């Protein structure tokens, strides 16, 4: 399960594991936010970390963050599929054993429908920043660091995303 000592340098493996623990979710989700394809996201995140391992002699742990996202973007460019972007987020809350009241279920379905339509309308750049903030709960500063943007740029994209959402939810499907 772990890379055996004597063949792999222990300090390198430890450093690599730290980077993995810190950014695995973030990278996978980032790819998911861009594509809506969880299988692709889980595949590409592996490729990103394999690349990091291969290049470990040239990489510093303290500055690896934005490099990871750049690599993810580059890998995505090679995998570009003209597929319609569809999201299937799962609900975090515990479902009660007993069946939910009918109107709760209806409301949920309505929300899911709305979500699909809305998210599909938000351009990729704004959508990615928006989801990183809302789903991953990252601060603007953190998003800025990961994507190598200014905080102002992040704020602008959030603002744009919200404007679109506000418009789109006005018109009930």
């Amino acid at each position: 399960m772990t890379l055996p000592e004597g063949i792999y340098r222990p300090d390198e493996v430890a450093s690599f594991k730290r980077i993995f623990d810190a950014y695995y979710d973030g990278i996978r989700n980032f790819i998911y936010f861009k594509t809506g394809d969880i299988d692709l996201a889980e595949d590409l995140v592996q490729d990103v970390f394999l690349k990091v391992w291969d290049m470990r002699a040239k990489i510093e742990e303290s500055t690896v963050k934005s490099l990871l996202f750049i690599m993810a973007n580059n890998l995505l460019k090679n995998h570009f599929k003209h597929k319609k972007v569809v999201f299937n987020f799962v609900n975090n809350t515990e479902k009660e054993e007993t069946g939910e009241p009918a109107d709760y279920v209806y409301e949920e379905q309505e929300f899911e429908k709305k979500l699909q339509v809305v998210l599909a309308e938000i351009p990729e750049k704004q959508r990615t920043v928006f989801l990183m903030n809302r789903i991953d709960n990252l601060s603007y500063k953190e998003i800025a660091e990961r994507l190598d943007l200014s905080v102002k740029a992040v704020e602008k994209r959030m603002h744009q995303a919200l404007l679109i959402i506000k418009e789109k939810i006005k018109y009930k499907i």
Partner: protein
Amino acid sequence: MGEFDDILKNNPDFGDDRELKKFLSDMEKLKVPAKKSKEDAWSELTAGIEQRKTPEFPTIRLKPVFYAAAASVLILISSWFIYNYLKNTTVSVPFGETANIILPDQSKVTLNSGSSIEYRKWGFANDRSVNLQGEAFFDVTKGSRFTVLTNNKSIEVLGTLFNVFSRGNMFRVQCISGAIKVDIPGEKEIVLEKNKGLKFDADTNEPEIVSVDTATAVSWINGEFYFESVPVSDVLKEIERQFDVTIQTKNIGDRVYTGYFRNDSLESALQNVCLPMSLHYEINGKTVKIW
């Protein structure tokens, strides 16, 4: 998210939009539909790494073969300049001297007496490979893989400072800083970190990992030679190299010596080694007798 709420509150575009607020709060409970747990992902990743048999580096060769191709080109091109540039560069250090070399990639090598190093200048930056006979201390710059080939073993450099000793059947490597990978045919590769060394004696055929006292390990660069439980005959061989003398011995037995000598005076070096071992010595020009 304080800053997010600010956008909603302070911005006239959104301030009182209850629908927007509801939508956003409904999003609170969503998460990405991951199929793999983080632990499983890590297992898959490490399995993928281990499967890469020899990653960025090709298998290490014991005897370099690229010289043959270069040699046939030499015959066709008679220009001395190109000949000089393509052939291997060899630096040999006779007995009684040490030498400092700077390789084309700015790596530094200090050669001990009676040692030689061979490498190809052309394309060195892309394939940093040197052939060593004897003993040398390496200070390697960052860059592509750096390989030290000896008649005994091969070393791949992951770090920067290390000392290699390869004479006859004896092989020793000490890692002073960084890490190095030693390739032993028939066995797995061994990674040595700072302050660790590897000893290999063809008699025992077992590699032994030892701790290294870095202060004494490379003191030979400063002309000081430390020994701990080393066969006297090996110590005397080093004296031969350092002073360019021939030592004839009679009945000295096969005891081990612990101590040191400096290479600035043959007389004191012989005293340091012989007296503790109750041995006599006699200097006759370039020959020394010990009994």
